[in-house]
């Protein structure tokens, strides 16, 4: 039994880890570094992640590149909820990790996207170099390769938003009650 499960795990994880399709989601200056990572000097295609998708329904990986404000937060949560399982999140840049330089005084910035959605890899720096993003993707790949289909349920629980345990698709009422403001 274990031999079969391990073999299936190996093939599943191998295919998932090497074809992570990111969602095009760049909200500020980290997006420039993300574009540079895609371009030919650094070439994210070497790690199988070059297919940036415009629709969250076709994406596995959310590279959150840039500051998230209160006005953007419901949109980010909605995009994350629309992504199919299995889904992974890289918090790219200091702003998404903990507010960055806006953490102390800004009235409009979310202090870390882990207050809204679960995060797999934190990638601080302002902004991270393309090499750092590639390293984050490599680390995520090595994490994916340790998964097992027997622990599927705990994985799904870990990857549902802390704000949306009982809710499926977001509604405006949901945003008002859970996120505070729309």
């Amino acid at each position, binding site marked *: 039994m274990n031999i079969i499960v391990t073999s299936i795990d190996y093939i599943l994880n191998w295919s998932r880890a090497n074809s992570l399709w990111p969602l095009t989601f760049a909200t500020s200056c980290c997006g420039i570094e993300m574009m540079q990572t895609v371009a030919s000097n650094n070439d994210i295609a070497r790690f199988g992640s070059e297919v940036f998708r415009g629709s969250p329904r076709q994406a596995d990986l959310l590279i959150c590149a840039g500051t998230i404000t*209160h*006005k953007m937060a419901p949109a980010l949560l909605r995009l994350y909820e629309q992504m199919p399982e299995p889904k992974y999140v890289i918090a790219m840049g200091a702003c998404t990790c903990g507010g960055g330089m806006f953490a102390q005084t800004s*009235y*409009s910035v*979310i*202090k870390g996207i882990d*207050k809204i959605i679960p995060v797999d890899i934190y990638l601080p720096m302002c902004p991270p170099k393309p090499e750092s993003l590639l390293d984050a993707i490599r680390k995520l790949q090595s994490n994916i390769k340790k998964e097992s289909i027997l622990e599927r349920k705990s994985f799904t629980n870990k990857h549902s938003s802390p704000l949306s345990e009982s809710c499926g698709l977001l509604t405006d009422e949901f945003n*008002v009650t859970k996120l*505070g*403001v*729309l």
Partner: protein
Amino acid sequence: MNWAEFQNIFSDCRLYGDKIVINSNLLKTVDFIKTNYHFDMLKEIIATDNGDGSFELIYRLFSPDDEEDLLLSINVKDETESVSSVFESAVADEKEIYDLFGIKFIGNTELKRLYMPEGWVGHPLRKDYQENDERLKWNE
């Protein structure tokens, strides 16, 4: 621009540095300047919180013929006249100022939130603004 002629009509205005300071009749003054001196473009509206409950609004007018700027300054309390009937581009500027400073422009029909989310409490660029919204406790 003929300053003496201008001062004859609007007696309560004065020249302070390079800006004209007026106390009232904002819409009338702007209309007069546009009609008679061909300052046909409103470049921007600057708002400043003076800290004592009043706000300074600076209107930067531009004359394409002479390629000159003209600064028109007025001190207001919470509300003032809208110049959107003279310059249509003022609608968006006044909307932004209403969002961040809470100054009501009488005559502007589009006064609602622009940068802040709908339902936000308070106007964040005011000097006495305190963020104490119960609904935002999760973000601390």
